[in-house]
């Protein structure tokens, strides 16, 4: 007698249109209800951490920039901050502000991108188009200021490579105003659309304690009511800027969406503040070609949460060890917690609710 299993198993990925990135979930479902989910990663694993052995610490900036195309500048920033701390140099003030500007622009573009994908995951094509349309403005800004649309590679150890002059700054603020208008429209849509609420409210609920103990970070954590935001530690120029972590308390997909939408407004505000407060001056300092020995941990708030950089050096041009724990990696545990018990239709939404970035995760 050939007995098939009582439950259905459905592969979700690696090639799947909802997730632009390859990740495989083996879903065990009953009717449409997901009973268990077994993840399998590694389709993007390249082994970039080990490139420290082959590239010197200056070249590594470009490598970490290419860890991910979405949060690339912030990876560079985190890495540079770590190395700078290791060497013990102080970055010029202007560079710090510039880093804030680009980081926050990245945050906006990343959130808009995510928002589009989420809309796509619950089948709202028009919203996807809308949010990506708004996003193109940011891409233009990035290209105009840094030279590339996606991987801008502006950070180097000791500062930044490019400057934003006053004229460009003014243009940038004008463009941001338009983005802000678009975002307002977007916010209204999210808050008032019945179907979106049906698909997000109460989906993927993560309680405050769970979120905290599963080590969730970023909007995933803040959507559950825990106000942890690395930017409040005041790295780069954040110490001089005025902002509060965005927190929502419901802990469901909707709350996380709202957190991200509000963060975009916050980011626009931060960019404005940074540009207004930006002092004149140098944008980078020269660094010596050799590193001192030591280990450093830095943490930087990425769009998806805090990234954790550990570097260890024992002198020389190359680092001994670079270790990156990305926000998605930290959030995956929460995802695995949320998946069982959801419905199949909600799986894409749930996967996207933590805003997964697999290339970050797997490096």
């Amino acid at each position, binding site marked *: 007698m050939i007995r098939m299993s009582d439950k259905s198993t459905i592969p979700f990925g690696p090639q799947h*249109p909802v997730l632009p990135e390859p990740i495989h979930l083996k879903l065990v479902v009953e009717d449409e209800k997901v009973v268990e989910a077994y993840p399998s990663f590694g389709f*993007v694993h390249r082994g970039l951490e080990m490139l420290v052995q082959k590239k010197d610490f200056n070249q590594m900036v470009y490598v970490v920039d290419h860890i991910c195309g979405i949060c690339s500048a912030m990876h560079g920033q985190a890495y540079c901050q770590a190395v700078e701390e290791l060497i013990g140099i102080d970055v010029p003030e202007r560079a710090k502000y510039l880093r804030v500007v680009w980081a926050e622009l990245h945050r906006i573009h990343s959130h808009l991108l995510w928002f589009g994908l989420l809309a796509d995951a619950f089948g709202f094509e028009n919203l996807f188009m809308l949010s990506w349309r708004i996003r193109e403005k940011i891409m233009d800004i990035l290209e105009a200021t840094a030279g590339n649309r996606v*991987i801008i590679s502006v950070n180097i150890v000791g500062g930044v490579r490019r400057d934003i002059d006053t004229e460009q700054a003014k243009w940038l603020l004008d463009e941001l105003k338009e983005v802000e208008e678009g975002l307002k429209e977007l916010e209204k849509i999210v808050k008032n659309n019945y179907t979106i609420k049906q698909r997000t409210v109460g989906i993927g609920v993560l309680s405050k304690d769970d979120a905290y103990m599963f080590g969730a970070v970023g909007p995933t954590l803040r959507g559950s009511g825990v106000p942890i935001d690395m930017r409040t530690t005041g790295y780069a120029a954040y110490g001089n800027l005025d902002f509060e972590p965005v927190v929502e308390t419901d802990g469901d997909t909707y709350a996380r969406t709202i957190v991200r939408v509000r963060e975009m407004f916050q980011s626009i505000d931060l960019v404005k503040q940074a540009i207004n407060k930006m002092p004149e001056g140098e944008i980078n300092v020269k660094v010596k070609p050799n590193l001192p020995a030591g280990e450093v941990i830095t943490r930087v708030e990425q769009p998806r949460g805090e990234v954790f950089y550990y570097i260890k050096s024992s002198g020389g041009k190359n680092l001994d060890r670079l270790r990156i724990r990305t926000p998605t990696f930290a959030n995956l545990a929460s995802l695995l917690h949320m998946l069982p018990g959801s419905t199949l239709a909600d799986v894409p939404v749930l996967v996207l609710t933590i805003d997964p970035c697999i290339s970050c995760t797997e490096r």
Partner: protein
Amino acid sequence: MGLKEFVEKSFKKSPWVLHYNCSSCNGCDIEILACMTPLYDMERFGMVNVGNPKHADILVVTGTVNHKNKEVLKNIYDQMPEPKVVVAVGVCAATGGIFREAYNVLGGIDKVIPVDVYVPGCPAKPEAIIDGLYKAAEILKEKYEKMGKAEEVLK
């Protein structure tokens, strides 16, 4: 216009795109997605993203091949019906780009499947991707013409 011409034109006018991200850094992927969005709108050329190899004519691959996804890439390629064209977007897909030396990377996708069009750039600009796809559509048409002959030979 005769039927034959119309069919050939159809192949050029309706290339369906399948996008597979094969350990890329997302940079190229989001640019491909950007091609679908209103500002670049690749649907003007009849290109739609189908997400299913069995419906696709053009396989757009970003990123390098690593040990885990080379089979996936091969499977997807095999499940596409002829005529089919492969476009490698980004330098990763061409040679492995900056990841070449990492331990889990095999190199460009041409190590696994034949590639027809290379779109350089890191990431490739949306304009370049559209160029690439347009070129791919032309190659698709040529391949169809060749395939028709192959079929005649079979008969």
